[in-house]
């Protein structure tokens, strides 16, 4: 799949933002006043910034509001609705903490649940797709949720929780990669089933419909950077998990905390780039490019 920068930025930033909102929402002794303002400003900058970025890849962003209508059937629509509700509830929670210095527990809990659900809906957009065997697994929501919770804990300064969740997310990431590499061949879909001619012999693509690449080839058959995939995985793993955990284990300092956060964000972005760039869409089979 083509790794569209807007979608990578969206899923990286909004995952962290909603993760932070979750921890702010369930905190029994949340920050108030100016400290609360700083935390919520970061969370909103990440989540809203991510959401706005996601509209950049649309053909008609001015119609984006229509995407809120089909929540009964579409995960993408559910994501939009859930994100707005989460931001609304957490916004009220933030106002009461910043300006009234009052902890409205119920608002926070509802907002936290909606924040987490938003991350789940994002993951289901990918996990629902039969056409991308690498994504079609319950491990995809597990991956997104564990990343979001770990990143949120890191941002909210919950050191022990962050270490624990980073380890859990690292395990999910490892299993997800292991499973993903065999997903297409395990799915049983190949050029034989795609053309229905597989029982007659080995099917080979002899000529593409057109001499130059088309929308399908560009969007779904992304192969650039595959040769560096293993290297990038190691980099992503080191930046997302290893370096932040080391920083958290060392005696606390603000410099180390900033390094941990920046390293984590860069790592998640790399992991998300791989999430798309390595994903094989079955339409590539018709082009003999798998």
């Amino acid at each position, binding site marked *: 799949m083509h790794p569209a920068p807007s979608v990578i930025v969206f899923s990286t930033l909004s995952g962290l933002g909603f993760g932070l909102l979750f921890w702010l929402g369930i905190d029994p002794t949340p920050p108030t006043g100016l400290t609360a303002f700083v935390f919520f400003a970061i969370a909103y900058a990440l989540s809203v910034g991510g959401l706005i970025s996601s509209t950049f890849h649309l*053909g008609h962003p001015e119609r984006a509001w229509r995407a809120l209508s089909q929540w009964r*059937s579409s995960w993408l629509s559910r994501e939009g609705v859930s994100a707005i509700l989460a931001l609304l509830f957490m916004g009220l929670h933030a106002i009461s903490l910043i300006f009234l210095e009052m902890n409205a527990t119920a608002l926070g809990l509802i907002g936290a649940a909606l924040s987490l659900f938003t991350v789940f809906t994002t993951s289901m957009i990918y996990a629902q797709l039969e*056409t991308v065997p690498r994504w079609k697994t319950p491990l995809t929501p597990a991956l997104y949720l564990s990343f979001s919770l770990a990143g949120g804990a890191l941002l909210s300064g919950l050191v022990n929780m962050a270490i624990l969740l980073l380890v859990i997310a690292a395990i999910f990431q490892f299993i997800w990669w292991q499973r993903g590499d065999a997903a297409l061949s395990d799915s049983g879909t190949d050029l034989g089933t795609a053309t229905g*001619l597989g029982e007659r*012999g080995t099917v080979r693509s002899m*000529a593409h419909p*057109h001499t*130059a690449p088309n*929308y399908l080839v560009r*969007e779904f058959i992304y192969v650039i950077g595959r040769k560096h995939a293993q290297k990038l995985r190691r980099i992503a793993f080191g930046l997302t998990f290893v370096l932040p955990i080391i920083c958290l284990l060392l005696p606390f300092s603000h410099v180390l905390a900033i390094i941990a956060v920046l390293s984590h964000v860069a790592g998640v972005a790399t992991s998300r780039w791989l999430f798309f760039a390595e994903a094989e869409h079955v339409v590539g089979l018709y082009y003999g490019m798998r």
Partner: protein
Amino acid sequence: MTDLPAKTDRTLGLVIDLDTCVGCHACVISCKGWNTENYGAPLSDQRPYGTEPMGTFLNRVHSYEVQPEQGSAQTVHFPKSCLHCENAPCVTVCPTGASYKRVEDGIVLVNEDHCIGCGLCAWACPYGARELDQAEGVMKKCTLCVDRIYNENLPEEDQIPSCVRTCPAGARHFGDLSDPKSDVSQLVESRGGFDLMPEMGTLPVNKYLPPRLKDSWDDQSLLAPLLEPVAEEPQGFLGWLDKALDKLPGGTA
């Protein structure tokens, strides 16, 4: 609404005969022509005369080689367009309700005024049947020529999809696949029509008819007995003539 209808009144679709298709791409061109001038946004081209031309097509013809374990390989030309699936994943993923499947005839369409161009329906389609138009920013797909098949301003013989009307080989057939007596259903029945990627659970409406297996030189031709020499030795008048000519000077043949 992007919920799929539980049942459609009719199930219009195509039956494509891989035995007959010669890979001429005439269906591709007639589709592009009709759908650029009629329903919805035109099918744009990018750099049509440049080094790497790109454009939106609703129908594309692949060519494959099938190599059996024994014997020579077979070339199969393979037209592919929207299969108007009964369980269309492109419809249910749509966040705006722009993609829908019609209850009256099962055609899957896009309401281009509501499409935000997010591309998720194209992601959900295993067949590559949907293409995001690079100029219009909306999703384009085969409409089964909905603006021809019900268009009473056209002569009756033209009230079929453009690709079917154009095919010079007669490799494309259009009809109601929910009616077991229809020509298309009979073709599927008698020729063993099959689905593409049945494991995806999309229940495609369009069916493909398999190509005949390739002949071998060892096969007995039906015409072979007629091509045998009628008599090895000439008899009667021709026999006399043969002998008489042999006796003349100048050597025998």
